[in-house]
């Protein structure tokens, strides 16, 4: 882990501070002032107004709870999804596809069913039963959690305040700068820890409003019952097998997001950032694990 390395590697490029969009800058600096005080000192300050200010969390409680519920359900969906895929690691385009029809592509792994020609001389144990039960249950958790989060995001201004980039930030120069900083693995500054940077904002918006809705849609499009109610939801995707193939691709993008997300959390300080997502409190960002 990076914690063992010195921080020198990262300090070179931390020169420029990222611009915090207009309306958020004010309360950020306000909070930063309070929160940079040691916890004991803040508690000692005592008066109600100061306490209210000082305990304003890095992440609202609802964001924290929905974050971890989504994490749990996503991991369950991922493991069970892989198990289900193993029973037929062949992918098609259009309405139908089976072992007698040509594939769009095959995943070169053994299968849990003897009826699938894989080229391997053995069949993996069949785990589809519990995997399917858990896949659909975890999907319910993910969908209901997502609805709660999106409702909160719109109602409480979380999206507008914390995720929507300021129009002025969307210039090619700012974008290039942001991407450059991410690619150089620049560690965030103290101020940046209280906000999301431009690339982070755009990525989260993509995950919340494009990838998650797509993975739910392509998943539901595979349900014969749902297809009987909303046939257009399947035909728009090109058919049921196309929906299944797209479900795989969107899932791969979500896994890529997860990997980069966890890597970035490690870069910024794993304990500190995960702690902030659990307790809401952001510790000293240079604290060593």
């Amino acid at each position, binding site marked *: 882990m990076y914690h063992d390395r010195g921080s020198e590697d990262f300090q070179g490029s931390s020169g420029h501070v990222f611009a915090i969009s207009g309306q958020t800058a004010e309360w950020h600096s306000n909070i930063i002032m309070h929160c940079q005080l040691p916890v004991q000192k803040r508690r000692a300050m005592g008066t*109600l107004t100061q*306490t*209210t200010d000082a*305990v304003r969390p890095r992440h609202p409680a609802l964001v924290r709870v929905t974050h971890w519920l989504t994490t749990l359900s996503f991991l369950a969906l991922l493991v069970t999804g892989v198990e*289900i*895929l193993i*029973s*037929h690691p*062949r992918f098609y385009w259009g*309405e*139908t*596809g*089976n*072992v*007698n*029809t040509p594939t769009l592509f095959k995943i070169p792994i053994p299968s849990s*069913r*003897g*009826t*699938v020609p894989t080229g391997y001389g053995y069949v993996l144990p069949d785990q*589809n*039963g*519990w995997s*399917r*039960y*858990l896949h*659909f*249950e*975890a*999907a*319910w958790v993910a969908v209901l959690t997502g609805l709660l989060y999106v409702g909160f995001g719109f109602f409480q201004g979380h999206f507008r305040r914390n995720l929507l980039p300021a129009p002025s930030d969307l210039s090619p120069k700012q974008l290039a700068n942001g991407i450059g900083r991410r690619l150089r693995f620049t560690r965030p500054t103290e101020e940046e820890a209280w906000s999301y940077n431009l690339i982070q904002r755009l990525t989260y918006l993509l995950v919340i409003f494009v990838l998650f809705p797509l993975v739910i849609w392509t998943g539901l499009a*595979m*349900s*014969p*019952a*749902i*297809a*009987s*109610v909303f*046939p257009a939801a*399947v035909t728009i995707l090109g058919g*049921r*097998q196309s929906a*299944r193939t797209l479900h795989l691709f969107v899932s791969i993008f979500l896994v890529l997001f997860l990997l980069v997300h966890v890597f970035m959390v490690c870069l910024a300080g794993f304990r500190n950032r995960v702690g902030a997502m659990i307790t809401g409190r952001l510790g000293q960002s240079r604290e060593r694990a």
Partner: protein
Amino acid sequence: MNIISRRKLMTTGLLAAAGATGLGVAAKLAGRYGLIPPDAGVLYGAGETLTYAAQRLLTRHSMAQEFSRSQISKNPFANGIDALGPEFQRLQAGGFAEWRLAVDGMVARPALLPLAVIKSFPRSTQITMIACEEGWSYIAEWSGVPLAHVLNLVGALPQARYVVYRSFQPDWWESIDMADALHPQTLLATGMNGGELPVPFGGPLRLRVPRQLGYKNVKYITRLTLTDNLKGFGKGLGSSSPEGGYAWYAGI
């Protein structure tokens, strides 16, 4: 403990209590309207009930998508079947003339229907997809008598809630609720793609439930039993699928 955290604790407590009460009421209502599937257990009961209840409410009048003749799969896949044994071979050699379908349970007039009689009933034809839980699928033209016709004929009692159907293969049996049993697309299929239903695809008699996955479409049907309670069948989970670890409701 300061004012903020006490208020927070109370709000959280109240929300948790409201949530628990809400869940309790929802479970009670789901039970009353028959929206809890028979395999709802501790681990996956919540997910299965949500799926079954939501889809029952959504699919009340829905019809499985029907495709054009040109979309019929040229190379359908029958899936692997276990050896059917000498008794089946004997029946097959006789053109299934001796094949009988028993209909019993909550019916006014239990019946033993020869295949020829079933084939003489009014026929319905559909070009629909069959999709396996593994992920593969094909489209075929299926023809047969709507199950609803047979249930009317034997006088299904109003208190019947499920139809249990059994196969010549003793370890493959299933059940569906009356919503699916009386659905116009649910067929006792005897024909496929303009010919007799081939044995690998379930001939001479297969139950077609196009709004559910392949494993609910049991091959070689020999017996229908109407009931108001699935507890007395097998391990009481509704069908052989949950006994093998798979969900009873497969509309997914």
